[in-house]
């Protein structure tokens, strides 16, 4: 098996190199046969990497401890489920997964564009293959997944206990999918720069890729947060750790990109900016891998620190320099005929939304790199922790939420004050009333009041927008209200999917604000039969039970939760002990309701005194963070769904391309 995997990776490298040559020469000399051969090489590369992945999975499942990777990240007693997930439990496997996804996406892009985009597509495939060559080079020469041990190990060292959790199956693949799929729009942007076809065809052809990437980045971040919440046992879900930041920054830039491309599609503006954003998004995915793998920045995640850092940094610098050079050369051709006319316009709102998003990304970048920068400049390592990120981002988040209500409703080009008043009167009133009620209910933190008012304002604008659309449909086609809603969304899925995402963002924002401001924490050491109080709840510690499997020993405490004397739940927080690597871990008990989460950690058991230490958090409304995430995902699926109009537009391009293969034609502009 290892030999097959090794061989497959070597072949993949050669095939990727060939696909570059074939696509380059084929595009330069307009040789359709060579271009077809290049596409076939892309598919063959994907097949070879698939073989390598299958080989590694087979070795993991068979517990082949002659393989260093298998011996380092699994053990004989590890449950099968985690043997499968161990594929991305270590560095070599993670890079293999990354490469696999990249070659799959490249293969799909090659298939989609076998007749579309005859000019840009070959160069986009060249760029994608070049990225693949970097990763395949690492896998072949630097960090090899199929290295053998000198002597077969009797047992493996097991997977890190923190990774032995079902989120391990979901979070890393989602995040990687999000990271890697950003390469496709990037490659098309680079293709557009190389060929000089700078209209918006590269954006349109990769629109769904960009949303797809954003979808998985969103899920990846949320899954990571949820994982931290359930597993790490500190009651929170986000700690502004460098690794979290590395996943958050591409998400922010992708979000900015998805908004600003609308301005280019509608108004032919911000062309340079869009090219910059997609370049940044891609560079940040590499940067994320660089900081997590290089050990340049210390993180609680502490992945295996390895010699990968310099390679990633070099690749990153080459990518940034090459892309910037191409961009600078093309700037004269990217002048836009249109310009901003008024601050009170949708263009301006979107521009400011972009500035805020990129501003947040920059603040996060700055805070993450601060220890390195301060050490380089002043010779002392100075860190900024979560308070820095909270301080900077809190006001920016408010600005963003405001623009989220303002931007989608304001008119293009310019809006008169009268128009503004008409559109925004009721949402603004709703926001103020909500804030006022919260004030009367006793809330005094100005930030919370502002956040609630703005959240209500945004929800108000979305309701207004839906009502307007439904009203128009009912008037024109005489539909019932529910039918009108469904048709409205189906006919304009991109737009209304976007609004649904906004609803999700607002819900998540409320969850974040409430959980940051109103979390209570109680730490208590108690004996069996003792009761202690957390908020409105009484918690009685009933005792502890120890169970054992060959893999893990579990001490589970039983806690009865009562409210006003009535039992409401039995909670079972536990302490785990993983035998193979002699490590303890915590299993949190969570009772989640829309109003508040009760979160119980068994922090320790003292053998001498019999005291059990509990750490209990009562976090209001944190439920809505996850609920908002689900709404965002739902909205994204709607926005991604292919619609009839778009299909017709693509079919038209294909026909046009077939008629004049050398020139191609921009997609028909949608009104």
């Amino acid at each position, binding site marked *: 098996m290892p030999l097959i995997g090794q061989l497959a990776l070597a072949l993949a490298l050669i095939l990727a190199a060939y696909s570059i040559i074939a696509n380059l020469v084929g595009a330069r000399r307009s040789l359709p046969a060579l271009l077809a051969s290049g596409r076939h090489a892309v598919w063959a590369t994907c097949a070879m990497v698939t073989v390598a992945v299958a080989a590694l999975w087979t070795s993991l499942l068979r517990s082949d401890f002659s393989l260093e990777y298998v011996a380092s990240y699994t053990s004989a007693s590890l449950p099968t489920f985690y043997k499968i997930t161990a594929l991305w439990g270590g560095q070599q496997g993670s890079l293999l997964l990354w490469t696999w996804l990249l070659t799959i996406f490249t293969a799909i892009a090659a298939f989609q564009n076998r007749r579309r985009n005859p000019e840009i597509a070959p160069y986009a495939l060249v760029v994608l293959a070049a990225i693949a060559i970097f990763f395949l080079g690492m896998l072949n020469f630097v960090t090899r997944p199929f290295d053998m041990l000198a002597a077969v190990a009797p047992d493996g060292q097991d997977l890190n206990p923190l990774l032995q959790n079902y989120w391990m199956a979901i979070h890393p693949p989602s995040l990687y999918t999000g990271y890697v799929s950003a390469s496709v729009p990037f490659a098309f942007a680079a293709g557009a720069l190389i060929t000089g076809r700078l209209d918006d065809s590269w954006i349109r052809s990769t629109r769904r890729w960009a949303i797809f990437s954003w979808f998985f980045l969103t899920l990846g971040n949320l899954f990571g947060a949820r994982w931290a919440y359930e597993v790490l046992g500190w009651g929170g879900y986000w700690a502004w750790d460098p690794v979290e930041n590395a996943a958050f920054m591409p998400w922010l830039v992708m979000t900015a990109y998805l908004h600003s491309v609308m301005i280019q599609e509608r108004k032919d503006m911000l062309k340079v900016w869009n090219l910059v954003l997609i370049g940044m998004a891609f560079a940040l995915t590499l940067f994320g891998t660089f900081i997590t793998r290089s050990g340049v920045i210390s993180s609680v995640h502490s992945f295996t620190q390895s010699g990968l850092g310099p390679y990633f940094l070099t690749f990153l610098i080459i990518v940034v320099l090459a892309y910037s050079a191409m961009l600078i050369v093309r700037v004269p051709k990217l002048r836009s005929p249109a310009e901003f006319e008024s601050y009170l316009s949708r263009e301006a709102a979107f521009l400011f939304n972009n500035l805020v998003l990129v501003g947040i990304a920059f603040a996060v970048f700055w805070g993450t790199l601060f220890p390195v920068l301060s050490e380089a400049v002043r010779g002392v390592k100075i860190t900024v922790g979560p308070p820095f990120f909270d301080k900077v981002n809190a006001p920016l988040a408010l600005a963003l939420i405001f623009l989220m209500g303002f931007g989608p409703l304001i008119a293009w080009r310019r809006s008169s004050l009268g128009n503004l008043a008409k559109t925004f009167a009721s949402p603004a009133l709703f926001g103020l009333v909500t804030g006022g009620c919260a004030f009367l209910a006793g809330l005094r933190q100005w930030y919370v009041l502002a956040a609630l008012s703005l959240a209500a304002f945004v929800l108000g604008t979305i309701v207004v927008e839906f009502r307007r659309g439904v009203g128009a449909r009912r008037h024109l086609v005489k539909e019932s209200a529910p039918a009108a809603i469904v048709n409205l969304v189906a006919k304009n899925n991109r737009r209304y999917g976007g609004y649904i995402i906004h609803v999700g963002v607002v819900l998540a924002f409320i969850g974040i604000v409430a959980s940051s401001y109103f979390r209570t924490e109680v730490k208590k050491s108690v004996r069996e039969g003792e009761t202690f109080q957390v908020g409105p709840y009484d918690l009685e510690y009933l005792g502890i039970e120890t169970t054992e499997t060959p893999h893990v020993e579990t001490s589970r405490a039983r806690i009865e939760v009562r409210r006003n004397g009535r039992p409401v739940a039995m909670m079972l927080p536990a302490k785990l002990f993983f035998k193979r690597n002699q490590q303890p871990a915590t299993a949190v008990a969570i009772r989640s309701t829309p109003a508040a989460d009760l979160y119980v950690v068994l922090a*320790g058991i003292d053998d001498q005194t019999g005291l059990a230490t509990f750490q209990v958090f009562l976090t209001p409304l944190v439920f809505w963070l996850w609920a908002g995430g689900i709404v965002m995902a739902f909205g994204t699926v709607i926005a991604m769904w292919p619609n009839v109009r778009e299909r017709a537009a693509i079919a038209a391009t294909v026909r046009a391309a077939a008629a004049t293969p050398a020139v191609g034609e921009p997609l028909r502009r949608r009104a």
Partner: protein
Amino acid sequence: MPKKIRFALGAGLMVAAIAYLIVTAVRNTAEYYLTVGEVKARQSELAGQTLRVAGRVVPGTISWNPETLTLAFGITQPPAQDAPAGVQPVAITAAAAVFHVICRGQPKPDMFAPGRDVIVEGALASDGTIQARQVLTSCPSKYAPKQPATAP
């Protein structure tokens, strides 16, 4: 005023506001991140400040009171050759403790153990005691394999 300039001005203001936020936040939240050795060298100058100190837990100095949730231990500078790595069984004696750390009101971290590398967040008192707000254990993602001393 031409529209272009007017917009550049607005965008510039926005950028300046963000920059201002970053600068003030850095000023208010920055903490030194030092090793035990570096703190020792500048002890008088750093007294009273909030720091993050990286060091190694000295075996034989740990006391833990679960009743009051008070954890006390000594930390020292790890030997240079394996500075950032995880668990390394190095013979350090109680006498090697450079600073005394007291952390009140927090549960003992899972991974806390003698000889483990930790990051202590807290204020340095003039007597060389660190009143810790938080003790973080660095979790190694790879473990030194346990020596199979009694392996067949």
